[in-house]
């Protein structure tokens, strides 16, 4: 057990790498494990992982980064139309994703591949969207993971409505109650819909967690263009707690999200978590961040890498050795190659299927257009087109 090996407790504030106002940090960039952190409101956050669970988190982090790198490569090779990389945000996503209980529902943006992975979902699921084969095409309820939502912030209202439904179904107020997590970014906090979802979640005491990955940029625009105050402090105005965590610390991400979700399922309403992190890559594969940020800034965040600190911790605590790290790398590589092969094998859709699933009850006009489309294409058969 590593728990006893890191017994230090300190008040909220984080290490020297914390932004003004501090954040909850349980694992420093150097891999030192703070046993627990007590915030100003008297809440104490800690984790109670077995050695195997610590190693499991490391495996998750490495795997989602490796799959992400494969996707970036696939995009560069023309096999994906677009990719939204999670590079740098692995800890925020793995920590919060692993904090979800089976019955919880997640509402992602389009970048939560790490959360998707931690939900136990086949990582190929969103690749149809990025390859241009479909628009997602999965069942939100089957996977407890909603469609990727591309319009910034819109999903926070869906999450809030879903959470209201949990309350209406009487599924809160106990340890096995249900809760919702809504993902969004720093840019989204400027959207009216996100602010409306804060209002609604507050007045309806919705069992949910707003998980904001503040990766410092909305494409090119820095945080200062979105807010005058730290984002987590906005929650106060809506009447529920807000807390900032070191978004590059998987342990803080897990501990605080788990506690907030449990508060929600127990009927104590919403929490806003601001995961203070950094988008190491471009906004998407279509973006060029060298036009709006300097290399030294990116370098300074490399020192706060979410994976290397877990590796340092595992090494210092003698919880893992080079064989383990090598095996994790190798198994992630195999998963990535398997993913690549399956992405390349994705068949293009039959064009006529574009007419499917517009309405549950269909439409005579679309039926006519489908028939005309089919007839038109059949007219070329044998003509060499």
């Amino acid at each position: 057990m590593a728990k006893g090996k890191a017994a230090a407790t300190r008040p909220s504030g984080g290490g020297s790498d914390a932004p003004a106002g501090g954040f909850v940090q349980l694992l420093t960039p150097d891999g030192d494990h703070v046993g627990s952190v007590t915030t100003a409101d008297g809440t104490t956050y800690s984790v109670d992982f077995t050695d195997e669970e610590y190693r499991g988190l490391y495996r998750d982090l490495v795997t989602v980064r490796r799959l992400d790198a494969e996707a970036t490569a696939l995009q560069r090779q023309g096999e994906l139309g677009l990719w939204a990389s999670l590079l740098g945000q692995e800890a925020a996503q793995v920590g919060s994703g692993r904090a979800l209980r089976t019955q919880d529902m997640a509402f992602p943006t389009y970048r939560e591949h790490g959360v998707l992975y931690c939900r136990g979902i086949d990582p190929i699921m969103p690749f149809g969207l990025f390859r241009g084969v479909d628009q997602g095409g999965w069942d939100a309820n089957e996977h407890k993971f909603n469609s990727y939502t591309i319009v910034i912030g819109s999903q926070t209202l869906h999450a809030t409505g879903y959470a209201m439904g949990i309350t209406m179904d009487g599924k809160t107020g106990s340890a096995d109650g249900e809760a919702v997590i809504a993902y969004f970014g720093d840019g989204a906090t400027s959207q009216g819909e996100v602010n409306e979802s804060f209002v609604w979640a507050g007045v309806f005491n919705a069992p949910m967690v707003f998980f904001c990955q503040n990766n410092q940029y909305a494409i090119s625009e820095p945080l200062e263009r979105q807010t005058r105050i730290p984002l987590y402090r906005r929650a106060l105005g809506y009447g529920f707690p807000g807390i900032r965590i070191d978004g590059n610390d998987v342990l803080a991400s897990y501990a605080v999200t788990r506690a907030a979700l449990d508060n929600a399922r127990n009927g104590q309403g919403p929490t806003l978590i601001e995961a203070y992190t950094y988008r190491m890559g471009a906004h998407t594969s279509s973006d060029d961040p060298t036009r709006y940020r300097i290399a030294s800034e990116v370098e300074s965040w490399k020192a706060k890498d979410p994976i290397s600190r877990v590796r340092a911790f595992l090494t210092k605590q003698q919880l893992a050795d080079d064989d383990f790290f090598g095996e994790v790398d190798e198994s992630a590589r195999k998963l990535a190659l398997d993913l690549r092969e399956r992405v390349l094998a994705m068949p293009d859709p039959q064009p006529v299927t574009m007419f499917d699933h517009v309405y549950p009850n269909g439409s005579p006009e679309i039926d006519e257009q489908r028939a005309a489309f089919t007839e038109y294409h059949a007219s070329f058969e044998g003509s060499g087109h």
Partner: protein
Amino acid sequence: MAETITLGKALNHGLRRALENDPKVVVMGEDVGKLGGVFRITDGLQKDFGENRVIDTPLAEAGIVGTAVGLAIRGYRPVCEIQFDGFVFPAYNQIVAQVAKMFYRSKGKVRVPIVIRIPFGGGIGAVEHHSESPEAYFAHTPGLKVVTCSNPADAYTMIQQAIASDDPVVFFEPKRRYWEKGEVDLEAPLTGAYPLHSARVARPGTDATILAYGPMVRVALDAAAAAAEDGRNLEVIDLRTLSPVDFPAIFESVKRTGRAVVVHEAPGNLGMGAELAAKITEECFYSLEAPVLRVTGYDIPYPAARSEEEYLPDLDRLLDAVDRSFGW
């Protein structure tokens, strides 16, 4: 047993029956609870079904529709009230980008059976944003179905059909007709009722086809009565469904009469009338004795109330168009 009630009361009865028949139906909007809605369409529903089923929401239209999406994913059948036509635009993003696309995005795996009720149209002497006819924006959006009722009997049936449908439905209510009365059979079963997405011949005729919907059906019927005195036998079709439009019913009529005039309150430019004219021309070209004519609102923002009578299509403008059709 049929009762004579107003269109507004018919909607109220229809909502009540939907709430009774399906515990997943919830009504949500601004002032729909204790107040019963600014037009009293939800009068008494919160008292009888509770605050969890008839929800007074915060004052935020995107929030109303956006949370309805989440409730629908959870298995509910939300009925959203937008208080006035001109207030739907804050919810426009949620309606066209989310409600309309969720089924398609999920390859048919996620249904969002949401009804969005919108009182629409002018003629009530209101201030700006309270008299608009935004139906074309929604009819233009794939993934949404759009309907409107013109009389109490249809209001009662159609609202229940819209709620029972798994398709997202934008339900336009002709607000200036809320107080018009008609016979409604409150016991009539939904099964076997006249289909939601079918037009109806409101008055059979032989000489020209008037295509109307919502508040303009009354105007069209009055015009047909006046034309009858001049020996012209006009057929009036109540479209009822704006997306999809029941084109077969329209083509059948126009091929028979050889003339068509479309009437609506919304501006003419790229409105329902434009699409109807185009489709009729494509399908009925050899039957037409005259071009399809449109009688619509002008291409201006809805004017101040003291000018609205001159803006809204009325009996005289409609008859003038009928005259022009016959003079071709």
